[in-house]
């Protein structure tokens, strides 16, 4: 090896270490383990630099940005309808849900309200994206702990939900269906009955998971009392969604202060769990899937007729103003702070993504934890890299 190659290599290693703030010369205690960025467990390219003392963690430092696409800068040069395509790709498993808060914020600034039929269908697709997202989580948590079988059942049953979403929107993963003022299109014929059948399958899947995974003693001993998050600490870090509800905080934006969606006209329940450990997070999400099925069934029974799009101009210029709308997305609370100056394009969009806050608690949470538990805690927090990195 020539000298220049060696020095280059050393410089590269030094830069990587500086990124990780790992001091190569003075490693006095502990072994430094790099979990990721290519690793089967991290859902995407998350890199966690862990200092170990034997098998216990002294400090954990997540490093992200491998997938940073600069969405907030990109939205400044896209027209409002074009932003929807961009924003689909933040949380790619439940992607319809990403469009909704942005569209609602733009509608709030334009003072346009989508017609009732559009709102009901929006809510149905919103809940279906939640089911698609969380069903994968239910299977994936097993894989992180070593049970390889539930994830196949999860993928199998998720296909049916994706088929239904595709029947309406034309896209399985990136529907790009929401428009300012309503939806792009109406429901196809026969969709309502098909979806009822699919929901039955999802309920069966939930029951299967309950027997296979929740009831399994090994699963319980791996998740009970692991990664306990007290409610106050969770709130101060900005944890949201099922993560905070499983620490006992009874807060769900769908019920408390949601705009634009019709959850307040349905009869459903918010699930909480007092423990705050990994098991609680799994259990709350399982119940939420069931609850989503109930909600969609009620929606299918009660969709009003009418148009699916309000009268909005062809070229959308949103009047000047600022609006912040957040919704209860599958991963947590997602919000868009839209600043408009009356242009075709937004002036500034701040994307408040759920996983960013959810993962920010890991340095605090992972201290003193065993290495296998690191994986199970990360799995239970359930983040998507696109959501963290935007």
């Amino acid at each position, binding site marked *: 090896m020539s000298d220049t190659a060696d020095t280059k290599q050393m410089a590269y290693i030094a*830069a990587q270490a*500086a*990124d990780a703030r790992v001091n190569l010369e003075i490693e006095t205690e502990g072994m430094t383990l790099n979990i990721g960025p290519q690793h089967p467990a991290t859902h995407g390219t998350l890199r966690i630099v862990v200092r170990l003392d034997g098998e216990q963690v002294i400090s954990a430092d997540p490093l*992200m*940005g491998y997938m*940073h696409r*600069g969405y*907030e*800068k*990109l939205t*400044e*040069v896209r*027209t409002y*309808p074009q932003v929807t395509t961009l924003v689909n790709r933040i949380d790619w498993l439940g992607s319809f849900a990403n469009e909704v808060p942005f569209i609602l914020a733009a509608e709030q600034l334009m*003072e*346009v*309200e*989508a*017609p*009732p039929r*559009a709102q009901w269908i929006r809510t149905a697709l919103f809940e279906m994206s939640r089911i698609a997202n969380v069903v994968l989580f239910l299977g994936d948590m097993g894989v992180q702990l070593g049970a390889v079988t539930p994830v196949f059942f999860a993928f199998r049953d998720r296909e049916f939900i994706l088929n239904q979403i595709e029947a309406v929107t034309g896209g399985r993963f990136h529907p790009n269906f929401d428009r300012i003022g309503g939806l*792009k*299109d*109406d429901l196809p014929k026969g969709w309502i009955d098909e979806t009822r059948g699919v929901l039955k399958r999802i309920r069966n899947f939930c029951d299967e998971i309950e027997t296979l995974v929740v009831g399994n003693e090994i699963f319980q001993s791996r998740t009970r009392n692991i990664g306990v998050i007290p409610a106050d*600490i969770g*709130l*101060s870090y*900005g944890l949201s969604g099922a993560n905070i509800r499983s620490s006992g*905080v009874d807060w769900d934006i769908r019920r*408390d*202060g949601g705009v634009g969606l019709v959850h307040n006209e349905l009869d459903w329940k918010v699930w909480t769990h007092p423990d705050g450990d990994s098991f609680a997070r799994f259990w709350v999400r399982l119940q939420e899937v069931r609850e989503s099925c109930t909600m969609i069934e009620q929606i299918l029974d009660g969709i009003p007729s*009418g*148009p*699916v*799009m*309000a*009268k909005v*101009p*062809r*070229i959308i210029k949103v009047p*000047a*103003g*600022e*609006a*912040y709308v*957040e919704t209860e997305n599958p991963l947590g*609370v997602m919000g868009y*702070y839209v*600043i408009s*100056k009356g242009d*075709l*394009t937004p*002036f*500034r969009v*701040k994307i*408040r993504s759920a996983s*960013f*806050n959810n993962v*920010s*608690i890991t340095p605090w949470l992972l201290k003193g934890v065993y290495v296998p538990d690191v994986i199970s805690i990360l799995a239970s927090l359930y983040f998507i890299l696109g959501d963290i990195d935007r």
Partner: protein
Amino acid sequence: MIQLSSPEETTEEEIEIPKRDDIREDLISKLKDDLGESLVATEIIAEVDVWARVTKEAWLETAQVLLTRYNMKYFNFLSAIDWLPSPFGRDMDAQVDQPEPVTPEEMTWGTTGGETRFQLLARVHDPENHLGISLKVDLEDTDLSIESWSSIYPGADWHEREVSEMFGITFLNHPNPVKLYLPGDFEGYPMRKDFALLARRIKPWPGIVDVEDMPGEESEEDEVDA
């Protein structure tokens, strides 16, 4: 006026009754008592949201007051706004990006106004009473630094790291002030308006692409030749 969607419904006469939002008015008046001079401007959109702008010196105190006395336990986000109009901007009626930077227009500000180019934007929330407030603070161009909120809201840690690398704002007393997203040797502050979006410099905006018809309507609105 709320536009009604269906033409079958009769249009009601719109009587403009200004809506009162007692909860938010209450919050603002109590905040005025607590912060006094530091509360520079407020704005309420009834039953929608409430904004407040405070002075830089009172930034930390505002957080403390909101957390302890107003039960705003939930930290939502912290970010920044660069009010400089983009020098690579686009004339509203033009179809493509200007090839050369244009003279920037006057700087204008949004809700609760402002005086400087950079403003911090933060939002906290009360999960029990379901009340949230957006906070803004001006940062002088000569001294882009402000105290860190991480001693009060630990979740502000990562948000402040992102803001500092994207906008170039320094946070004093931050426990871990290193870059979050960008690689270690990145130069520049990407989210500032005068930082060029390279993709747009290389390939100009294609212009307003011809959009499809709105479902089931003849468009009488202004059509732009694509």
